[in-house]
């Protein structure tokens, strides 16, 4: 019977990706000298699982590669081979090769040739000639010569329930040579109490074979995790590796979704709690419906209570539902260990990476989209921020640079910081470069904050040469754009000679926004809270008409251009005179604008609805939301408004 395995292939790829992550993580901790007792075993099991899968699906190259890798890892965990730095590097490279092989298999393209080279290297490390051609059902050579092995095979009682048949194992062994099997039935209960789904049998086997130890072990490939197995040469010379595996589950994997899929794993507890809440909400709602039935004015307090209950449950439901999509940042922080080490090594620098707050959770969509910008920031810090050991010693710093990645919750946001204790950025140099690039004029007065914000402009880069790591000047503005697109903000803090910190603020979710509701004429608009600096009432003396450019408001000596939202949106506004209305100061790109509005309606969390779904993108608007009264209100895009006000050239009040 042909079983169609293709549906399981995707699962295999996803699991293989997770196994490789575990392998890499353990190898890195090995390199850092933090290997635990189980580290080597864990690494071995990962390779082993991938090998089993590779063979099941017939991925030749992958199977052969993992076979050799597994052999080496086995020697490693038995202490026969020492985990030298060179070996760990080789193993890390093997992880890369395996990743490439998996990608090739997933995309059904040819495996990259590099795998054969690395296989050779692994062979050399094993100090054995190239592995025999892999054929799990290879008919045993008929020669009577060979070694005798004493094998003990004790499967766990639930072996059958896992769909495993010990007979197949014995059959495989028999094909390798001459097998004498002695079944130990001592544990077998009487027929009445026998549970046909439980395995009570154990075997003592004697195998005479010319096959290598690896091949013998291969026969136990699928049962290894659920049986106690020991294979020893009968003529006991060197104590061979006892493969006594505890009854263990698959290697634990972090809660992480594979990059190529759009599905995710969620803790069952989260889902259960969500379902409970929905139940409670339904109950609260039906209570309210009952009150409404034959409603009289006396029942009003009851109705109010019921509504309050519904509101409470709805709010918690919203919270919980959002949490379902949250995953810890460790899923992206994880890759940076390797990145930092490899890049630092390539540049001849010594850098230690400290990570804290990796369990901080973020919406899955945000996590995926912040990964690349963060990678760039980390690369930047390694490439430009931190100096070479020699330079550092000259500056009186320890030769090893420190790079710190931190994530934490603050208010309704998640903060991610990338901090280094490197050379920092020279404010004067930034300014000079900005003037050179025409981003600012020589006479412009800019605060230090504003000068630092110039880094995020397109085309800006103070790197003297273009390294292949970064430094092309295309990075920082893309970082800012990505963060802005997520509804967040990014800022730079730096001190020359001491280092830099890039601080990213991100919303907890993309779908919900903290906003300020305001009224212009008869229309309600929402401004994202993250863009608001303050709202003020303006005195007449603060308003000035700058020749031809429109009104400007001076706030604490800073001239801020005034934007009349009514005019920009062609709504008749009540307020023509800035001194009579309210002004909301907003920030974008390090600059400020003053928006003239009629009334502030309060702060609120709003659900963002896309305008593009049924309509199209409108400049100055990021989306819409539904207000409590059922009307649609537009959410303002400060970047767009800034562009519109600049482009139009503010015309003076008529």
């Amino acid at each position, binding site marked *: 019977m042909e079983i169609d395995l293709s549906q399981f292939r995707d699962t295999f790829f996803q699991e293989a990706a997770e196994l490789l992550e575990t392998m890499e993580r353990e190898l890195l901790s090995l390199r850092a000298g933090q290997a635990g007792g189980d580290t080597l075993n864990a690494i071995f099991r990962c390779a082993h699982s991938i090998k089993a899968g590779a063979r099941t699906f017939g991925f030749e190259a992958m199977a052969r590669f993992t076979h050799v890798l597994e052999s080496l890892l086995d020697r490693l965990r038995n202490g026969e081979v020492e985990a030298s730095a060179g070996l760990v590097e080789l193993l890390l490279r093997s992880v890369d090769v395996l990743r490439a092989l998996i990608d090739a298999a997933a995309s059904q393209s040819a495996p990259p040739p590099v795998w054969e080279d690395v296989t050779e290297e692994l062979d050399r490390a094993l100090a054995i000639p190239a592995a025999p051609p892999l054929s799990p059902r290879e008919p045993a050579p008929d020669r009577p010569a060979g070694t005798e092995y004493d094998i003990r095979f004790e499967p766990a009682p639930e072996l059958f329930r896992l769909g495993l048949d010990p007979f197949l194992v014995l059959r495989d062994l028999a094909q390798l040579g001459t097998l004498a099997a002695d079944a130990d039935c001592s544990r077998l209960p009487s027929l009445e109490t026998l549970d046909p789904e439980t395995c009570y049998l154990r075997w003592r086997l004697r195998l005479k074979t010319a096959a290598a130890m690896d091949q013998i072990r291969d026969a136990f490939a699928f049962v290894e995790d659920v049986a106690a197995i020991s294979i020893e040469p009968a003529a006991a010379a060197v104590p061979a590796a006892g493969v006594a595996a505890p009854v263990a589950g698959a290697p634990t994997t972090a809660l992480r979704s594979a990059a190529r899929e759009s599905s995710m794993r969620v803790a069952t507890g989260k889902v259960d709690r969500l379902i409970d809440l929905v139940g409670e909400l339904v109950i609260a709602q039906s209570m309210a419906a009952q009150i409404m039935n034959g409603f009289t004015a006396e029942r009003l307090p009851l109705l109010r209570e019921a509504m309050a209950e519904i509101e409470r449950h709805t709010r918690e439901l919203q919270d919980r539902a959002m949490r379902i999509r949250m995953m810890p940042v460790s899923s992206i922080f994880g890759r940076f260990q390797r990145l930092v080490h490899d890049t630092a090594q390539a540049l001849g620098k010594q850098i230690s990476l400290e990570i804290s707050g990796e369990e901080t959770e973020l919406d899955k969509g945000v996590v995926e989209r912040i990964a690349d910008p963060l990678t760039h920031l980390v690369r930047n810090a390694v490439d430009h921020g931190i100096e070479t050991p020699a330079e550092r010693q000259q500056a009186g710093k320890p030769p090893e640079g420190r790079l710190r990645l931190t994530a934490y919750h603050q208010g309704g946001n998640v903060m991610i910081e990338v901090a280094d204790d490197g050379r920092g950025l020279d404010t004067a140099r930034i300014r000079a470069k900005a003037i050179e690039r025409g981003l600012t004029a020589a006479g412009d007065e800019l605060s230090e904050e504003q000068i630092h914000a110039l880094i995020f402009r397109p085309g800006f880069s103070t790197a003297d040469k273009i390294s292949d790591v970064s430094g092309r000047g295309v990075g920082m503005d893309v970082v800012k754009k990505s963060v802005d697109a997520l509804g967040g903000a990014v800022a730079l803090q730096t001190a020359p000679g001491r280092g830099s910190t890039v601080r990213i603020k991100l919303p907890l979710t993309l779908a919900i926004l903290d906003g300020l509701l305001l009224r212009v004429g008869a229309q309600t608009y929402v401004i994202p809270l993250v863009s608001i600096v303050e709202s003020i009432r303006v005195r007449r003396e603060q308003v000035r008409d700058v020749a031809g450019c429109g009104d400007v408001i001076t706030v604490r000596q800073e001239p801020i251009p005034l934007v009349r939202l009514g005019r920009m949106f062609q709504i008749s506004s009540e307020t023509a005179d800035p001194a009579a209305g309210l002004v909301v100061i907003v920030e974008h790109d390090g600059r400020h604008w003053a928006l003239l509005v009629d009334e502030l309606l309060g702060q609120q969390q709003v659900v963002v609805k896309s*305008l593009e779904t049924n309509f*199209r993108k*409108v*400049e100055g608007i990021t989306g819409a939301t539904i207000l409590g009264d059922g009307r*649609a209100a537009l959410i303002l895009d400060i970047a767009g408004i800034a562009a519109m006000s600049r482009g139009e050239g503010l015309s003076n009040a008529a």
Partner: protein
Amino acid sequence: MTQQTLVAADGSGAAGPSSQYLTFVLGEEQYGIEILKVQEIKGYSAITPIPNTPPHIKGVINLRGTVVPVVDLRAKFSLAATDYNKFTVIIVVNVGEKVIGMLVDAVSDVLDIAASEIRTAPDLGGRVDTRFISGMATIGERMTVLLDIERLLSADEAAAQQSLN
């Protein structure tokens, strides 16, 4: 498009396949659109205007949590604007993957119109671009202009895209 052979109520027996059209009124004229494109008919509700859009885009409404744009067909056909009353409706249609609302004076009937009854529209030099007219049918005494709603509303998109680029 459903192709049905109908027997009319008076037993005359319609000849050939026919389709159902939702007819509505704009000013003096009666128009029709394929019923299968119609998602629902909604009473007039508060429309939120969108800045810097052509005059026939009245704004957006809340349709059970989805933000749906509303096109003022009167403006699109260059008719004079009118006051909205309780008969004013928004016909919500599915065009491609988008949900769009059309503001009309009033909704009339759902009519079965046989393919044989549809004539091609002469160029009236009138207010409706003939590109958007898929045909005309005379039902009883009334002439109904059948609109190609996809073309009508997608042309908007193309024009809008161009102005953005």
